[in-house]
């Protein structure tokens, strides 16, 4: 009988001891709830912890950076273009007690983050043009959104580390327009290259033709000059000699011409009078 009671006490003691101890590991933080009310400060260190047995309940939350990945949403820019923005947020439970009292759970937190980040995103993006969002102001925009959202999220015990645009792209139908424009630009470029090639080609070829013509003309001019020199030199030589006796020259030159004219075997017919020099001897001897 005694031993039974003893055994019972031991068992109860073990249960009590065990239920007054709990572990908090490096990845989590905990809050003690006593009969429905939180007690003490949130436990943010790790290790073996103690609580009131039975009546204290431990609620644990993650201490690590958590992620929130939104669905892509269409947002209108300042220059009235639609932009599909896919953003993400990295956040932490900063104040587990506040967190527990306001959003209560991860799902609740996700909803809050979604609301706040999205509305910030929509506001800020509406103030910038598409090209600013894509390039020059991108990081700036993210900083503004992070800053403004984190102030609002602090009320829920959430620390927003950063919110970022993972993707900011055009909707499908606008993509088509860009493709068409890109294509048109490329076609223009291709045309330009080919035309430039033809331009240079024509320049080079026509220049070559011109140079060729000039070279040949110059050569013609020079050669005619040279020939002329030859001719005039020859005439001068002839004139100098023949002027000594024009009469005799005419006689000799005529004879030469005879040779040239009648020298070849041809069908010349010559009608000679007996009066000619050749027959004078004949007639004289008559």
């Amino acid at each position: 009988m005694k031993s039974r009671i003893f055994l019972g006490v031991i068992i109860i003691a073990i249960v009590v001891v065990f239920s007054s101890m709990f572990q908090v590991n490096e990845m989590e933080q905990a809050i003690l709830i006593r009969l429905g009310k939180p007690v003490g400060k949130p436990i943010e260190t790790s290790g073996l912890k103690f609580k009131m047995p039975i009546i204290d309940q431990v609620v644990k939350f993650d201490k690590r950076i958590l992620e929130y990945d939104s669905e892509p949403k269409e947002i209108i820019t300042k220059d009235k273009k639609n932009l599909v923005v896919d953003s993400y947020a990295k956040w932490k439970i900063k104040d587990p007690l506040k967190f527990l009292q306001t959003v209560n759970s991860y799902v609740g937190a996700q909803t809050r983050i979604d609301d706040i980040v999205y509305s910030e995103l929509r506001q800020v993006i509406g103030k910038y043009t598409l090209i600013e969002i894509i390039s020059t102001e991108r990081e700036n925009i993210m900083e503004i959104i992070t800053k403004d959202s984190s102030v609002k999220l602090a009320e829920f015990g959430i620390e927003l580390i950063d919110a970022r645009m993972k993707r900011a792209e055009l909707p499908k139908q606008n993509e088509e327009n860009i493709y068409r424009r890109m294509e048109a630009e490329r076609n223009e470029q291709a045309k330009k290259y080919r035309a430039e090639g033809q331009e240079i080609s024509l320049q080079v070829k026509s220049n070559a033709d011109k140079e060729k013509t000039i070279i040949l003309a110059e050569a013609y001019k020079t050669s005619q000059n040279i020939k002329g020199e030859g001719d005039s030199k020859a005439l001068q030589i002839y004139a100098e000699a023949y002027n000594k006796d024009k009469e005799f020259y005419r006689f000799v030159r005529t004879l030469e011409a005879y040779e040239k004219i009648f020298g070849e075997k041809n069908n010349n017919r010559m009608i000679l009078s007996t009066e000619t020099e050749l027959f004078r001897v004949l007639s004289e001897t008559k």
Partner: protein
Amino acid sequence: MADFNNPNFKKFINFVKKLGFLSIVIVLALYLLTGIYTVGPDEKAVVLTFGKYTKESNPGLNWYFPAPIGKVIKVKTTKVYREEIGFRTIDPGPPAKYQDKRTESLMLTGDENIVEIDFTVQYKINNVKKFLFNVKNQRKLVYDAAQASLRTVVGNSTLENILTIGKGEIQSQTQKKLQKLLDVYDSGISIVNIQLQDVQPPKEVLNAFKDVASAREDKVRYINEANGYRNDILPKARGEAEKLINEALAYKEKRIKEAEGDVARFLQLYEKYQLGKEVTKTRLYLETLEKVMPNVDKTIIDKNLDSGLLNIIDKGGITNEK
């Protein structure tokens, strides 16, 4: 009801007590034995005791207080992890099979064009404690932050730049940005490298881009052809010119030399002529006739038979008609 005062029963109780003690010892020993674990050379292990970080153990045999008191988490620290963005390897092959993820790979450039980039991120765990305890979903973190980083960089470059000279530049800029983000998150991850696998215009406009490349080649070809033409005709023209001038020079020399020759001959004749003018003339005349006449058909008409025909001949074809 059993009789508790039976001595046999007492013996039995004693036996149970002994056995109980022994079994407790055995159970305890077995429990402690389960705390032996090995750490491979390529990994590090973190030991938690009551949930608290106590140590990082080295490769080899180690021991920890088994669960529920202790906990060991092993992490491969030499391994290079890899994330694929814009595509997924379905089958590493060979031949490798990939699946395209166009929502991930299409992105806007700073000059409002669209480019398609597939890339991989390789990273290592450089701080096990941070890696395990600071971030919940590490892979997703790398994956998200990498996309955000690359798109920021691409958004700040022109398409032309990305497609031509900018590839290495984009890789290093993206790596810097991504590493900065991962440091902000204090994630214990270090990026080994970022590799742009495939950088292309979207397939919808690829042909237009290819045409530009071939247009560039065409341009070069046109120019080369023209230069070829030039190099063909000009030397020929120069040769032609040289030829003309040489012919002219030859002509000139020929004319002069011939004139000199003719004149020399004439002067010699002239010298003889001075000696006896009539005689020489007659001689020359007759010699010429001798040379010439044999080849000619001759009709000789006596002057005395003048029928008027000779008039015509004498007067060089001038008739009496007025």
